[in-house]
C-alpha cells in the first residue's frame, strides 16, 4: 500500500475529502510550511482543524459565555472545568456529545461517550463521583427507533454500571427532528481533594511522553477519507471505523490515574486523555500549551492491529488511553506503577524546545511541522447569520388550548412520552453504587453526598429544544433557569454549568443565528445566577437530508448543598401539608407539551423571561429550604402545574385538594420561574411572610390518591391511581407495542 504523494494530494485536491478547504490547504502549504504537506501531515491538519477539535466556527460565539466566578479554578480549555467548593475540595465536571457515533452504532456509540467523558474528569486528577445523560430520539413509533433507544440506553448503562459510577440523573425526550439524528450527551462529575490540579501540558526539555492504557487499533478513523476509500483491499472491507469501549480497562485506568496523581504528584508533570483525534490531538495540545516541541516514535505505540500507517495511528480513536508527561528520573517508577494495575505503559516520545512536532515511523521522519500550527493557526470563521423566517411569520401567534374535560386532558398529558415516567430506562442504570447517592433519578436533581463532610452535590441535565426553536435567546435563558430550578428545588445553590451545544450546519445562516442567539441567552442567564460556563462541547452539522434538528443546547448544572439536612425532594410527604405555587402563571402555551398534544406542531413566540424575578424566586425558595420550612419542592416545567402536582403525589401514593384562581387551561401552561412547594401547616405564617408576593396557596395534600381540583372553570375529581398507572406504564407500553 502506497500513500499518495504530497503533489498528488495537491493536484487531485485529495485534502477536500478530509474536510480541508482550498484556502485552508493553501494557508498550510504556502504560509505555514512553505512546502506541500505529505499524507500524514495533511491528515493531522484535517482533524486538528476540524470543527470538532478547533471550534473554528463556534469560537467567536463561545467567547460570549461567562467563565469566571470566585469559585473557578479552571475553566474551558482544560479537559474539564473545576470549581472550588471550600475546605480545600473542588468539583470537576464536563459534558460531551456522542451523537454521530451513536447513530452509527448505538450501543458502542453511547458507551464510548460515557467512557470518554469519564476520562476527561480523571485526567484532571479528580475521582469521578457521578454520571448523567441527556438523550433525544425520534418518536417511539417504529421498531427502528425503539431498537435505537434500547441500544443507546443499554450502552450508557453498560459502561457506567461496569465501571462502577452511579448514574444519578438525566433526561430523555422524543421529537420528530431527532428521528435520523439522535442526540446522546453524557456528563461526568468528579471530586478533587485538593485545589491544585494537573494541567494537560508537556513541558521541560527531554521529559518523557508516556502512553498508558489500551492498545491502538483502527477505531474511529474517518470512514470517508481517501485513506479508507482508495486503499482498502478486499480484506479490509472487514475494517470498521467504529470505536468499541472496554469499561473494564477504563476502571483500571481510572483507579491508576487517580492514585498516581494523588500519591505521586511529583512523578507526573502533565496528563491528558486521548479523546477525539486520539494521539495527535492529545500530544499536540499538551506541547502547544506548554510552548514546547515534541518527538514521537510510533514504533513504540502499543498496537492491536498489524501494518497500521502513521496516519492511522495518529488519528485512531481507540478508547481507554492516556498520555502522561513525566520527568526521566521517574520513568521506572511510573512504568512499574501502571504495570501493577496490569496496564500497558510505554515511553513513546520526548519533549523538545524547538516547538516542532516530529513523528518517526519505521525510522522515517513522517511529520515535521510547527506544533502551534495544529492548534493555534486554525482560521476562525465569522459565519453569516439570519433570523429564521418562522420567527418573523409566527411572531404574534398565541396558542390557546381547549379543555373539554379536565380529567381527560390530564390523563392524556401524563402519557405523552416527554412527560411520562422514564423509569423504564433509568432503572437499568446503577444509581447507587459508591453508597453516596442521596437523591436518585425521579426527583428534580440527582444528589450525591461528599463522604466525611456535611456537603452534597446536586446535579442535573436540562434542555428544552422546543423553546429554543421558537426563540433561541429566551430558550437559551430558560434552559439555564430550568436547570437552576432543579438544583434549587433539591436544596442546593447553582455554582456552575457545562453544556453541549447541538445544532445544525453552521454554514446555514439561520442555523448559525440560532447558535449565536441561544448562547447569548445562556450567557445572560449565567451572568444573573453567577454560574460560569466552565466546560462544554459543540456538536454542529446535526442534520438529515439537509433538515436540521431543533437547536438543542443541553445544560449540565452543578449545585452545592452546604448541609445535607437541606436535601429536598419533589415527593409530597404527608397528608395535611399545605400546597403552594410560587411564581405567577400566564397563558404560556407556545412551545408547550399541550401545544404539541392539541395542535401537533410548534408555533409562536415565547414570553420575555424576567431574569431578576426568576432569580428572586430561586433565592426565596432556597431560604425557605434553609429555614427548614419546606417538606417538598418541585420545579414547574414541561406539562405545567398539572404534571408537577401529579409527579409530587405519585411516590407516596398521596392526593391533593386544591382551589385555584387559574383557568383549567392554565394548569398546563409552562410559564417559567415557578415552583410547587409544600409546607407543614404550622409554618404557614412564616413561609408566607418570607415569600411575600407572587404565590398562591392552592390547598393541601390528602391521604387518598384522589385529586380534587377546582379552577375558575370547573371542579373535577380525578382518580390519581389511574393517573399514576398511565404515567408509569406509558413508555413501557410504547416500547412493547408492535408496529
Amino acid at each position, binding site marked *: 500500500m502506497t500513500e499518495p504523494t504530497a503533489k498528488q494530494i495537491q493536484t487531485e485536491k485529495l485534502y477536500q475529502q478530509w474536510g480541508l478547504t482550498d484556502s485552508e490547504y493553501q494557508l498550510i502549504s504556502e504560509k505555514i510550511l512553505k512546502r506541500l504537506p505529505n499524507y500524514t501531515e495533511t491528515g493531522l491538519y484535517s482533524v486538528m482543524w476540524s470543527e470538532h477539535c478547533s471550534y473554528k466556527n463556534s469560537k467567536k460565539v463561545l467567547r460570549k459565555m461567562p467563565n469566571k466566578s470566585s469559585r473557578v479554578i479552571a475553566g474551558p480549555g482544560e479537559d474539564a472545568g473545576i470549581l472550588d467548593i471550600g475546605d480545600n475540595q473542588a468539583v470537576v465536571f464536563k459534558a460531551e456529545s456522542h451523537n454521530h457515533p451513536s447513530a452509527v452504532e448505538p450501543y458502542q456509540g453511547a458507551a464510548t461517550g460515557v467512557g470518554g467523558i469519564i476520562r476527561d474528569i480523571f485526567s484532571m486528577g479528580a475521582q469521578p463521583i457521578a454520571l448523567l445523560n441527556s438523550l433525544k430520539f425520534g418518536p417511539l413509533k417504529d421498531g427502528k427507533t425503539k431498537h435505537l433507544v434500547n441500544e443507546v440506553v*443499554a450502552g450508557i*448503562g*453498560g459502561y457506567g*454500571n*461496569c*465501571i*462502577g459510577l452511579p448514574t444519578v440523573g438525566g433526561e430523555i425526550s422524543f421529537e420528530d427532528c431527532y428521528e435520523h439524528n439522535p442526540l446522546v450527551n453524557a456528563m461526568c462529575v468528579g471530586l478533587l481533594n485538593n485545589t491544585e490540579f494537573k494541567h494537560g501540558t508537556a513541558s521541560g526539555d527531554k521529559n518523557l511522553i508516556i502512553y498508558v492504557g489500551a492498545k491502538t487499533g483502527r477505531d474511529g478513523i474517518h470512514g470517508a477519507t481517501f485513506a479508507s476509500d482508495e486503499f482498502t483491499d478486499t480484506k479490509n472491507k472487514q475494517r470498521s471505523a467504529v470505536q468499541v469501549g*472496554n*469499561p*473494564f480497562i477504563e*476502571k*483500571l485506568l481510572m483507579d491508576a490515574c487517580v492514585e498516581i496523581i494523588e500519591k505521586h504528584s511529583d512523578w507526573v508533570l502533565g496528563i491528558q486523555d486521548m479523546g477525539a483525534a486520539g494521539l495527535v490531538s492529545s500530544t499536540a495540545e499538551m506541547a502547544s500549551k506548554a510552548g514546547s516541541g515534541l518527538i514521537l516514535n510510533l514504533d513504540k505505540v502499543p498496537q492491536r492491529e498489524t501494518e497500521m500507517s502513521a496516519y492511522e495511528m495518529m488519528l485512531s480513536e481507540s478508547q481507554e488511553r492516556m498520555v502522561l508527561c513525566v520527568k526521566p528520573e521517574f520513568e521506572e517508577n511510573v512504568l512499574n506503577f501502571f504495570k501493577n494495575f*496490569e496496564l500497558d505503559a510505554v515511553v513513546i516520545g520526548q519533549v523538545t524546545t524547538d516547538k516542532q512536532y516530529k513523528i518517526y515511523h519505521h525510522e522515517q521522519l513522517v511529520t515535521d511541522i510547527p506544533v502551534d500550527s495544529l492548534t493555534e493557526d486554525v482560521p476562525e470563521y465569522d459565519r453569516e447569520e439570519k433570523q429564521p423566517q418562522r420567527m418573523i411569520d409566527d411572531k404574534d401567534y398565541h396558542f390557546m388550548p381547549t379543555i373539554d374535560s379536565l380529567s381527560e386532558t390530564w390523563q392524556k398529558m401524563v402519557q405523552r412520552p416527554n412527560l411520562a415516567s422514564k423509569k423504564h430506562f433509568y*432503572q*437499568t*442504570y*446503577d*444509581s*447507587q*453504587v*459508591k*453508597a*453516596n*447517592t*442521596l437523591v436518585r433519578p425521579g426527583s428534580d436533581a440527582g444528589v450525591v*453526598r461528599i*463522604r466525611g463532610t456535611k456537603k452534597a452535590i446536586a446535579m442535573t441535565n436540562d434542555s428544552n429544544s422546543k423553546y429554543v426553536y421558537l426563540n433561541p435567546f429566551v430558550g437559551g435563558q430558560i434552559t439555564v433557569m430550568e436547570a437552576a430550578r432543579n438544583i434549587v428545588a433539591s436544596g442546593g445553590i447553582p455554582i456552575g454549568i457545562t453544556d453541549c451545544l447541538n445544532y445544525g450546519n453552521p454554514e446555514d445562516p439561520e442555523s448559525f443565528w440560532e447558535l449565536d442567539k441561544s448562547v447569548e441567552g445562556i450567557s445572560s442567564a449565567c451572568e444573573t445566577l453567577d454560574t460560569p460556563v466552565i466546560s462544554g462541547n459543540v456538536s454542529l452539522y446535526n442534520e438529515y437530508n439537509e433538515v436540521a434538528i431543533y437547536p438543542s443546547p443541553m445544560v449540565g448544572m452543578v449545585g452545592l448543598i452546604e448541609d*445535607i439536612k437541606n*436535601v429536598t425532594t419533589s415527593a409530597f410527604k404527608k397528608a395535611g401539608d399545605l400546597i403552594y405555587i410560587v411564581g405567577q402563571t400566564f397563558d404560556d402555551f407556545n412551545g408547550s407539551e399541550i401545544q404539541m398534544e392539541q395542535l401537533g406542531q410548534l408555533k409562536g413566540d415565547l414570553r420575555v423571561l424576567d431574569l431578576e424575578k426568576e432569580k428572586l424566586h430561586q433565592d426565596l425558595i432556597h431560604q425557605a429550604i434553609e429555614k427548614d420550612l419546606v417538606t417538598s419542592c418541585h420545579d414547574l416545567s414541561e406539562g405545567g402545574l398539572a404534571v408537577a402536582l401529579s409527579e409530587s403525589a405519585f411516590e407516596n401514593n398521596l392526593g391533593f385538594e386544591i382551589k385555584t384562581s387559574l383557568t383549567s387551561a392554565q394548569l398546563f401552561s409552562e410559564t417559567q420561574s415557578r415552583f410547587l412547594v409544600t409546607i407543614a401547616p404550622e409554618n404557614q405564617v412564616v413561609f408566607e411572610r418570607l415569600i411575600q408576593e407572587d404565590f398562591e396557596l392552592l390547598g393541601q395534600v390528602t391521604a387518598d390518591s384522589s385529586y380534587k381540583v377546582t379552577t375558575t372553570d370547573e371542579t373535577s375529581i380525578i382518580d390519581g391511581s389511574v393517573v399514576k398507572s398511565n404515567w408509569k406504564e406509558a413508555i413501557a407500553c410504547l416500547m412493547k407495542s408492535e408496529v
Partner: protein
Amino acid sequence: MKFAVINFPGSNCDMDLYYAIRDGIKQTVELVDYRNESLEGFDGVLIPGGFSYGDYLRSGAIAVHAPIVKEIIRFANEGKIVLGICNGFQILTELGLLPGALIQNEKSCFICETVDLKVLNNQTAFTNEYQAGQIINIPVAHGEGRYYCDEKTLEDLKINDQIIFEYQQNINGSVAQIAGVTNKQKNVLGMMPHPERAIEKILGSDDGLKLFQSIINYQVKVNN
C-alpha cells in the same frame, strides 16, 4: 473483628463494603488484593459487588482463577465467615462454595431498585439480629441475578434452611424467589441485594446494618 474485602480487578463495591464495616459497625477492615495468597489474621472475608474482569464471559467466571481464591476456599472450609454480595455471590457459585448459578434476569435488563426481602432464616451468623419473617428494604443492582438451581438442589436448600432471603416481588425471575443462600454449614452466604448500600437512613434504608451486626454477635459467641 477483622474483615478482609477482596479486591478483584473490576470490583466496584469494595469501598462501599469497606465503609459499611469501618463506619457502620466500627470494626477493623482491610482491602486485600486478588494477587495475595494469604488471609492469615482475618476473621471474615467479604467479596464485593462489581464486574470482576468485566464479567466478560459469565459473571464471576474469570475471578475464580485468581490467586487469592485458594485461600477463600480454605477459609470457607474451616467454617469461617464468607459473605459474597452481588458479583461476590456470583463468584461463590462459580467456585462451587454455594449451590446453583446466577444468570441473566428474566427481563434480560440490568435493574437498579430498592426491594423488599423476607428474612426466612434468622438463625444464622448473618441474620441473628433480624426477626424471622421480617421484611427488610435493600437495594439491588444487577443484570445477572436470576438464581437458578435444579429441583434436587432446591429441595436440599429447603430442607437445610439454606434459603436466607426471599424477594417479595420476583424482580429477576429467581427460582423460589431466592435472593440469598448459604452453604450447608451456614458460614458462607451469597446474596444479590446490597446490604452495604443500606446502612444509613439518609441513603434510603439502614436495614442492611443488622446483617453486619449479626456477624459480630455470632463471632462473639464463637469466641466464648
